[in-house]
């Protein structure tokens, strides 16, 4: 229909444009491209033709698909081309090499824009000579750059590079245009010729694209200016945040650090030209392979080493621990910096083709992350052991925190895949940790050593368990999550495993889950087990006082650990702490009564000391002897007892002093002068109240001999 409209016009057009071609050396026109509308009709060209064309174009715009519209645009331009053919046909015989690529380019552009005008026009016309001329010129150019001594892309001057890409773009378009006539035999030669040159050019670009990617990476700034913080074993808090700090710097974020700006813009241009030339697959492949190697190199540089699952199972925990620490560092670095940077780079190089860039970078990161995930996968399979809990928690958290960022890195299909893999591995760590806690319970239950700790000191089991729990509770929220998830899995599992009835416990579980935190339940259970175990251990002490000291020591230690850690404290709660405190007071009282009650008793019991207001001396002497003996004995045994906690130690001493000293003072005051001063007093009043105080202060040091020797002999 459009063709019909145009048909009446050609005759005048030809004439008009013929005139124009003659002074077409006009530099204004030498760089036009087919789709550059501004350059279309030279200002001096005949208005009639241009106007008609424009009108035509406008009309067509309304009811045509964009593609057809483009073609029309080409037609517009093409007003001149038919005349070119004529002119070319005229000069065909002599065929001198045109010295100027610009001129030939222009001819080519015009030729392309008219090719589709009317098949009949071409039916009896050969492909114009300038197509071959163009091929020769471009080929010569390629030969210059890619001949015996190839020229590196970065060695080309900007104009040269620009001009070369323009020529290749033109030849790509020409090739596409010619191919539309592939069934027409007389085009075959040119299609072959142009295709050959195009291929050679693309081949050069491909290699240069690869070299640009390979040779111009800036390796240092990324990895060395911001080394990830060294992971110390206990500083689990800092790790997560510190790593992401450099990321959040808004200025840094948008910059691509791996390539200089100028190289990037070249990469972009080459990619664009290759894609236009139909070499998208090659371009993607080169990009993919090169970046894959680059990524692998950076992983290696970060210290990531591959191990087979088999090897990991056989590794010692110490080495595995080191591997895990490296892994966490590398994985975080990848998720926070490396992968987003890869995406950014890809977006920049393929800025015209977001779909390519999304798939490519997704694919690149997928390859790397699958390798990375192999490590936790293998670690999760290793034998569970209590000491692994903390590293497992670190891995669990790392995986958990990485999941949300995945949406931005991968294409949807891969997001699903990688997320489910990650989640699966994460849940394996979750289950492993639940089992580790079970094993902690079991090991507490199973600890039944028959020898009491000397001096009633804090039992190693108490120390171990409490320190373990204290560390564990630093991961309180994560463990909470782990136990909650475990409950969920349990419930889901019980739903699936239909071959036995699990309903009763399911209901129970649900109730539990709603009311209290499963980790708190877990923690309380461990505490209770520890208590029960200590209770049993205390029975090993024949001496009731020592029994109390032991319970006090351990109870105190537990309470102090709980109070010292806000996490456990909040989990165990104030009522629990209060209960423990009052238990401790009871032990304290028991001890005081058991040990010092006896002593004070002999001071307080005045029976028989006085008869008719007169002091019975022998009884008094006996009383003093008795007191001295009891006190000596207490001092002897109890100074080897241990109260490691300073506060408890001084509390005990103070309370003992408060109980004993005033009583003794009063006793002395009342009966002391009854004894004859001198030898008798010295013999029976062995201790002044101050001495008693000093001796009490000797207690619970755990080293009787030393203190006795130091004081008095």
């Amino acid at each position, binding site marked *: 229909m459009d063709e019909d409209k145009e048909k009446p016009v050609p005759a005048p057009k030809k004439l008009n444009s013929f005139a124009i071609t003659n002074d077409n050396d006009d530099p204004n026109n030498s760089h036009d491209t087919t789709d550059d509308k501004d350059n279309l009709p030279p200002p001096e060209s005949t208005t009639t033709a241009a106007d008609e064309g424009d009108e035509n174009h406008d009309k067509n715009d309304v009811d045509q698909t964009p593609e057809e519209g483009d073609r029309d645009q080409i037609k517009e331009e093409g007003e001149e081309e038919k005349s070119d053919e004529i002119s070319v046909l005229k000069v065909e015989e002599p065929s001198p090499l045109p010295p100027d690529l610009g001129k030939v380019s222009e001819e080519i552009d015009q030729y392309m824009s008219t090719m589709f005008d009317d098949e009949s026009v071409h039916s009896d016309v050969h492909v114009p000579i300038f197509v071959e001329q163009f091929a020769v010129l471009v080929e010569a150019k390629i*030969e210059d750059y*890619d*001949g015996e001594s*190839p020229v590196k892309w970065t060695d080309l001057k900007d104009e040269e590079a620009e001009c070369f890409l323009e020529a290749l773009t033109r030849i790509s378009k020409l*090739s596409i245009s010619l191919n539309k006539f*592939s*069934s027409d035999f007389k085009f*075959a*030669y040119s*299609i*072959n*010729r142009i*295709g*050959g*040159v*195009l*291929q*050679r050019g693309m*081949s*050069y670009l*491909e*290699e240069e694209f*690869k*070299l640009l990617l390979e040779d111009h990476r800036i390796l240092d700034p990324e990895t060395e200016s911001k080394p990830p913080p060294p992971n110390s074993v206990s500083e689990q808090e800092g790790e997560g945040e510190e790593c992401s700090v450099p990321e959040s710097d808004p200025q840094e974020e948008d910059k691509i650090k791996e390539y200089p700006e100028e190289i990037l813009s070249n990469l972009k241009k080459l990619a664009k030209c290759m894609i236009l030339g139909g070499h998208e*697959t*090659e371009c993607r*492949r080169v990009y993919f392979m090169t970046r894959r*190697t680059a990524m*692998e190199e950076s992983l290696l540089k970060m210290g990531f*080493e*591959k191990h*087979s*699952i*088999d090897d990991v*199972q*056989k590794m010692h925990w110490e080495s595995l621990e080191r591997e895990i620490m490296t892994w966490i560092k590398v994985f975080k670095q990848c998720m926070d910096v490396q992968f987003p940077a890869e995406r950014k780079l890809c977006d920049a190089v393929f800025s015209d083709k977001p779909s390519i860039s999304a798939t490519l970078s997704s694919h690149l990161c997928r*390859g790397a992350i699958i*390798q990375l995930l*192999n490590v936790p996968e293998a670690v999760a*399979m290793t*034998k569970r052991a209590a000491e692994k809990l903390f590293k497992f928690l670190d891995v669990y958290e790392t995986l958990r925190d990485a999941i949300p960022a995945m949406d931005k890195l991968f294409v949807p299909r891969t997001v699903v895949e990688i997320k489910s893999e990650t989640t*699966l591995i994460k849940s394996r760590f979750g*289950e492993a940790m*639940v089992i580790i806690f*079970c094993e902690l*319970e*079991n090991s507490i*239950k199973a600890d039944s050593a028959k020898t009491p700790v000397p001096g009633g000191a804090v039992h190693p089991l108490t120390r171990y368990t409490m320190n373990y729990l204290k560390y564990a509770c630093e991961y309180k929220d994560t463990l909470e999550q782990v136990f909650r998830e475990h409950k969920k*899995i*349990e419930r889901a*599992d*019980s739903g699936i*495993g239909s071959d*036995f009835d*699990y309903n009763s*416990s399911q209901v*129970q*579980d649900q109730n539990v889950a709603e009311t209290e935190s499963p980790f708190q339940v*877990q923690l309380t259970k461990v505490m209770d*087990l520890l208590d029960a175990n200590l209770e049993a251990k205390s029975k090993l002490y024949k001496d009731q006082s020592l029994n109390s000291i032991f319970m006090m020591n351990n109870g105190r230690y537990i309470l102090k650990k709980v109070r010292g850690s806000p996490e456990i404290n909040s989990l165990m709660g104030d009522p629990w702490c209060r209960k423990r405190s009052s238990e401790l007071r009871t032990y304290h009282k028991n001890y005081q009564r058991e040990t010092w009650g006896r002593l004070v008793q002999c001071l307080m019991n005045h029976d028989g000391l006085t008869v008719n207001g007169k002091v019975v001396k022998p009884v008094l002497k006996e009383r003093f002897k008795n007191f001295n003996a009891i006190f000596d004995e207490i001092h002897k045994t109890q100074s080897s007892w241990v109260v490691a906690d300073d506060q408890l130690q001084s509390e005990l001493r103070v309370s003992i002093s408060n109980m004993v000293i005033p009583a003794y003072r009063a006793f002395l005051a009342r009966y002391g002068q009854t004894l004859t001063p001198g030898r008798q007093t010295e013999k029976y009043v062995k201790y002044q109240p101050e001495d008693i105080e000093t001796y009490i202060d000797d207690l619970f040091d755990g080293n009787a001999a030393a203190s006795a020797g130091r004081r008095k002999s």
Partner: protein
Amino acid sequence: MPGTDNQSSFLNRISIRRNQVVTVENNHDQEQEDLELFQKHVSERLSELLPTGTPTHNNHNNDLPPSSASLDSPSTDSSTAIPSLLSISWFRKLLDSFLCCEAEFKAVLLMGRDPPQFCKPPLDRLIPELLDRSVKALDICNAVTQGVELVHHWQRLGQIAVTALNQRPIGEGQVRRAKKALSALLTSMMLDDKETNNSSSHGKSAERTWSFGRRGGNATAANNGNNKDRAAGSFKSLSWSVAKSWSAAKQIQSMSSNLVAPRGAEQSGLALPVYIQSTVLVFVMWSLVAAIPCQERTGLATHFQVPRNLGWAQSMISLQEKIGEEWKKKEKKGTVGLLEEVQRMEKLALALVEFADSFQFPLEDEKVEEVAIQVAEMAEICRKMEEGLVPLQLQVREVFHRIVRSRVEVLDVLDQVGKMSSPVPY
């Protein structure tokens, strides 16, 4: 221990299940029946994998119209038809069968059994061996996953050639483009051989391939003097490896070295299913390694032998023989793996490169037709790969996860039973 009940219920689940069954007296007959059924099923599943009469590598024409009029359309490639040995779809079927066997095995092993059996001979030795084997199988799964990735990469190169050579008229540019892709394909295949067969050259070969870049490669190039493209810029194939010095062949060897058929009284106990499933596992892993590019597989053929006299294993034995023969045939000249599609792709690539070398424009019509047939076949292979590789990869992953899960379940039982006489390698 009431304390741990709600903590470790996924451990207890098994025991609950078991206890329920154990209470049923007289379950020995049931056990025997289960064992026989398991054997029968394994045997049946394997026999479904045997090619029906058609010699290996010759029935890939089944997508072309058959000369003899058969009623079921062969082009549908439906599940009823047995896919040709070592093709992608054959492997998918193989893995399906494996997953079925595995599920049944787990049921036989774990359900309705008396856990203390696990720490008495012969299971006290067999179970740890089984666990060790499954860990090794996991590494092989990972290696195979990467191998499939590499095949995928080859497919993309093949696709470039197909696209180029589907242009008409076939011009020099397109031919050279195709050749470049195919050379890269062949180099990658060849490198893969070198790398997989010579692990010591690992690092070196990477450098060497990188330096292929500018020229070389095309030195032997064409007769038309116009062949000045850059060489195929071959990249080191896909270098993600399992681990340095890891060897698929060695893994297979150590998986099968302690595989001994139970004798005498053991034949009626759990030793037999453990042996059967282990054999199936090794067979599946062995054939995957043989077919799909894998790190280091020298001498693979000799690493796995099944005793000839096992009734249930007849199909496996003949499959193993067929694959073993193929392997020996190919191993001498180095092989990219026996995967049917890859083998065909390699042949076609060689043929098309030869065509490219002798190409002269314009091409005579008959030559065009000849090439068109080859290109169509290449396109068909690419299509099969495109369709089959991703599902295959997912299936390998599925196998991986299944093995992990079963291992955990077995370990849980062991945990319950307590100490084992031989240390458990977990």
